[in-house]
């Protein structure tokens, strides 16, 4: 719903042609910038593959290994984020809700959250080996800590009035949890998933440093050893597009599930 004066901040095109143009605009601008950087000579043109060259490489890879790479990476991210958020929701809830738990766990969470997943790879290899478990562990790690922060803040800002009101209507503790806290937590769980997904895709390349044969990260690692910039570009663009697609899907689901929220955007 677009309200009053805020409508001015959010241009909404009327006809479908204009709408498509607005959607395509940022990407076309990026493409133009890409060509411009090459043409300007600011960076050595041999270090910046042309967009059409990258596209041709994409076609070539698509006929070869790309589908498998995409599948492997997407699956890893999925599993890592799923497990990470599954753990983050109850832990984040407990920290946000119970003062004692907060005092105890919060400093620990912040300590471990600060550790970059890349730095942990040697330890992960030692404890998990070099199989799928190791790669998933890194992604789980990144997703879990991203999710916990979102949950803690979200639960913490639930207004006490809703609990008070429900008590005056006769709700017991179990009912308050199920009928008041859970609905209020849903938007935060969805945000936790979105953030965890973003972090996981960003960590994917690091996780696939652990001796991965297939995967977009592996593709990029491989290509970088042979200085095949066009393949690197293909890999990075694929990661970006898939992550974007997942995020858009999640946002659409959020809009549906949390239609009741009064929001600016």
């Amino acid at each position: 719903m677009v309200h009053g004066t805020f409508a001015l901040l959010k241009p909404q095109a009327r006809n479908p042609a204009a709408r498509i143009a607005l959607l395509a605009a940022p990407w076309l601008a990026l493409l133009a910038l890409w060509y411009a950087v090459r043409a300007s000579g600011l960076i050595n043109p041999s270090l910046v593959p042309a967009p059409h060259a990258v596209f041709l490489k994409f076609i070539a890879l698509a006929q070869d290994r790309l589908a498998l790479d995409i599948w492997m990476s997407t699956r890893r991210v999925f599993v890592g984020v799923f497990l990470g958020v599954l753990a983050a929701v109850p832990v984040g809830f407990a920290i946000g809700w119970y003062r004692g738990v907060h005092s105890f766990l919060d400093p620990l969470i912040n300590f471990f959250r600060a550790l970059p997943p890349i730095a942990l790879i040697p330890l992960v290899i030692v404890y998990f080996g070099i199989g799928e478990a190791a790669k998933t562990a890194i992604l789980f790690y990144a997703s879990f800590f991203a999710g916990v922060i979102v949950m803690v803040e979200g639960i913490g800002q639930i207004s006490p009035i809703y609990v008070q009101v429900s008590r005056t209507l006769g709700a017991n503790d179990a009912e308050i949890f199920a009928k008041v806290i859970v609905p209020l937590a849903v938007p935060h769980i969805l945000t936790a998933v979105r953030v965890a997904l973003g972090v996981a895709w960003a960590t994917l390349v690091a996780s696939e440093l652990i001796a991965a044969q297939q995967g977009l990260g592996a593709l990029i690692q491989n290509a970088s050893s042979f200085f095949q910039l066009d393949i690197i570009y293909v890999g990075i663009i694929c990661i970006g597009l898939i992550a974007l697609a997942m995020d858009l899907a999640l946002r659409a689901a959020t809009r549906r599930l949390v239609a009741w929220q009064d929001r600016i955007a």
Partner: protein
Amino acid sequence: MTPVPALDTQPMVALPSFPVRLRLESVHVDFPAANGPMRVVDGIDLDIRQGEFVSIIGPSGCGKTTLLNIVAGFVKPSSGRALLDDAPIEGPGPDRGVIFQEYGVFPWLTVRGNIEFGLRLAAARVSGAQRTEIVDRYMALMGLADFADHHPKHLSGGMRQRLALARAYAVKPEFLLMDEPFGALDAQTRTAMQDLLLQVLATEGKTVMLITHSVDEAIYLSSRIVVVTARPARVRTIIDVPFGYPRDEAVHEDPRFALLRAHIRTLVMKEYEAQARQAAATE
């Protein structure tokens, strides 16, 4: 203090034979503050009988809401006792419906969902058919039937307040504790809601404690008015309202209405002045 001329002080609703349901006995409340505990309520004694409508009126920030919170069960007295049917009040419950100043309507539920919330709880024990009937009735009463499937984000402030009222009425509490429930409404809606409240009380019989800033509202609705001092809250005076129930608009024309209003206004103004002197003294 000018004596109030010839008011009939016989309470029309709660005869002395009606049992005392709520009792505040030497209630003191201290809240922690930056430089030591702050006394918010200072020795309040108040008895409320079955069927009474008691309004509490006094300057802003004097502790009226704290009094309501004690009866609601959100705050325990620092000393003294708060009793419901001679038992100490332990916490909130569906027997004491509360209308909060901030409404607290559940944003994730529709209008219908909000009103039926209390009826879906284990404590309610109503069947599905009964529930629908009750919800429809109060939705219609509050003029919200057209918005049954809308979420609160589509409602104006006044409509949200009406939703909060419908939600509280639906569980048929014995006591209604209302914290400036009509403050956010325009004059027209305010009058309509006041009349609706009287209508609900006439058919359902409750004991009400109302906090208000409006002297007119207090006189129109109540059987007794408690004027409270500036912080820390003490009872300044208790005034019996001489009009019976059921009441209607005509009561505004009664000469005693104007006299009462003038009298109570003077008392409340004196408390505002006391509060201002207090504030000046602490600067």
